[in-house]
């Protein structure tokens, strides 16, 4: 049985007045002892997924089960308890408290859990030694290198010996020498009894992983062929938040482009007729659909894979498409 089980997870929230759905129907099973890489560009939902796994963000739909606990069903004190004892987080930019020494930073989660002073100090000492910083124990974060700070952050995340370790871009601010020690530490931590999840946009980390979750929405396999559609008024070609596949050219009829706001209302961005195209930026840049394309009067549209579209519309480059895009 999988230690971590995510079923049909959807996260949707309002951003800038519009509805955004960075995670849409995610399924994932991870056995104990594995290291999972969440790979994707900025805005692809990696950090959102970490927040949900950490019990910080409540998903819009779906379930997360870790061991015997259904995380998505936890509320109040039970959720705080889960955060304290089951999850350890290594934040991007280390996020150490600058006024505390390295061991004090490691002690902070134990203070929060009201662990007694002596065991707290002993645990911090042990973890600081474990990450190889015994000789820097009196230093504050400002006196440590990036790699050393990240190792303190890992030690802090391990304070409660969590069964789920989450790391957000753990190598983002490190040089290649420092990266090595962090990767080694993360790999060693993915041992039986623990699941390690690392969010990154850095594909060089791929060999580290037992399992990779591609977070950037890739076009489905049928996006490689030209598709012709005839749609009635009111039908949609694609909806806001969908994975982007093809670029559409209107053969006949009228199509409107609308964006759904967080209050449910729609902003009409454009109204397009025969000979015009839409939905080019999503597949070009690997982004989800940022608006809905809805047929106004019966329309025939042809969907082209990005490569065909570029050949056809912009053989000299895509810069002018980006400049003139309606959305």
């Amino acid at each position, binding site marked *: 049985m999988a230690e971590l089980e995510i079923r049909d997870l959807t996260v949707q929230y309002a951003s800038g007045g519009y509805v955004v759905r960075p995670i849409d129907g995610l399924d994932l099973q991870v056995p104990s002892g594995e290291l999972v890489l969440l790979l994707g560009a900025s805005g692809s939902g990696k950090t959102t997924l970490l927040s949900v796994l950490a019990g910080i963000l409540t998903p819009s739909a779906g379930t997360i089960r870790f061991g015997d606990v259904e995380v998505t069903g936890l509320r109040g004190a039970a959720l705080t308890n889960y955060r304290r*004892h089951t999850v350890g987080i290594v934040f991007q930019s280390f996020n150490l*408290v600058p006024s505390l020494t390295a061991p004090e930073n490691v002690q902070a989660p134990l203070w929060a859990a009201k662990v007694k002073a002596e065991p707290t100090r002993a645990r911090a000492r042990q973890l600081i030694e474990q990450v190889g910083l015994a000789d820097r124990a009196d230093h504050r974060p400002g006196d440590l290198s990036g790699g050393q700070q990240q190792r303190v952050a890992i030690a802090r995340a391990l304070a409660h010996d969590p069964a789920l370790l989450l790391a957000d*871009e753990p190598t983002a601010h490190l040089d290649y020498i420092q990266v090595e020690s962090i990767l080694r530490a993360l790999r060693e931590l993915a041992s039986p009894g623990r699941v390690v999840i690392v969010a990154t946009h850095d594909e060089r980390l791929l060999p580290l992983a037992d399992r990779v979750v591609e977070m950037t929405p890739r076009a489905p396999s049928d996006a490689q062929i030209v598709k012709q559609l005839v749609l009635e008024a009111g039908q949609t070609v694609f909806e806001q938040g969908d994975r982007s596949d093809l670029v559409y050219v209107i053969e006949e009829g009228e199509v409107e482009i609308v964006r759904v706001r967080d209050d449910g209302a729609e902003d009409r961005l454009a109204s397009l007729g025969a000979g015009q195209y839409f939905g080019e930026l999503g597949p070009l840049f690997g982004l989800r659909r940022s608006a809905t394309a809805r047929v106004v009067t019966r329309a025939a549209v042809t969907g082209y894979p990005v490569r065909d579209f570029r050949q056809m519309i912009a053989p000299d480059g895509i810069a002018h498409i980006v400049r003139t895009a309606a959305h």
Partner: protein
Amino acid sequence: MNLIGYRLGGLGSPAVQDGRVPAGPGEVVVDSELGLGVGEQVTVSGRTLRVVGVAEGVSYYFGQPTLFVPIAEAQAIAFGRQPLAMTIVTQGVPATVPDGLQAMSGPQVRTDLERPLASSTQTIGLLDALLLVVAAGIIGSILYLSALERVRDFAVLKATGASNRALLAGLALQALLLAAAAALLAVLLANLLAPVFPFNIEIPTSAYLRLAVLALVVGLVATLAGLRQAVGVDPALAFGGR
């Protein structure tokens, strides 16, 4: 300066620290605040008096020094030698008081002496209250800015399982320490500066107690300034770069 004329050998004779009390006209005992020594001369309303004694701590009206002269000398200076007096000092309480006079006890006289200073003391009281408000404002601002600076720290602590109560307790402790340190500094400064003032300053025990209570209240009120930052922060803020 204040001028007191008294009947030589009678009530009202000053306690002299240096020299002696006046023995006749033209002699004066001065308050040490005047800075004159025995043998020196002082001219009052055109009459030259010889200092025969120096007394200490005999000033009123915010440190105005007092001169003690024989009553005839005072009448010559103030009333053109007419046999007038403004106050009659008695031992014991008079059974009847002549018309136009009023019997007052020692404490009543002390209070009555403060009457001309009422507006001044009121102003000082107002300044006192204003300074307290300013102090509370400064402590509140320091705490607010410090909380604002540490929003990400709060988010990290929350993400790692710290409760709102724990964060608030930390803030309150910081505010109380700040207020207590300020109060302690105020006590030290007050005791250091009091002797420098040209008049006698007494700091009653009740003032220290009032200060301690005020420091507690100011500290707790200042905690409110950082409340929103600590409680309202979204732990998800801990994710993402700086």
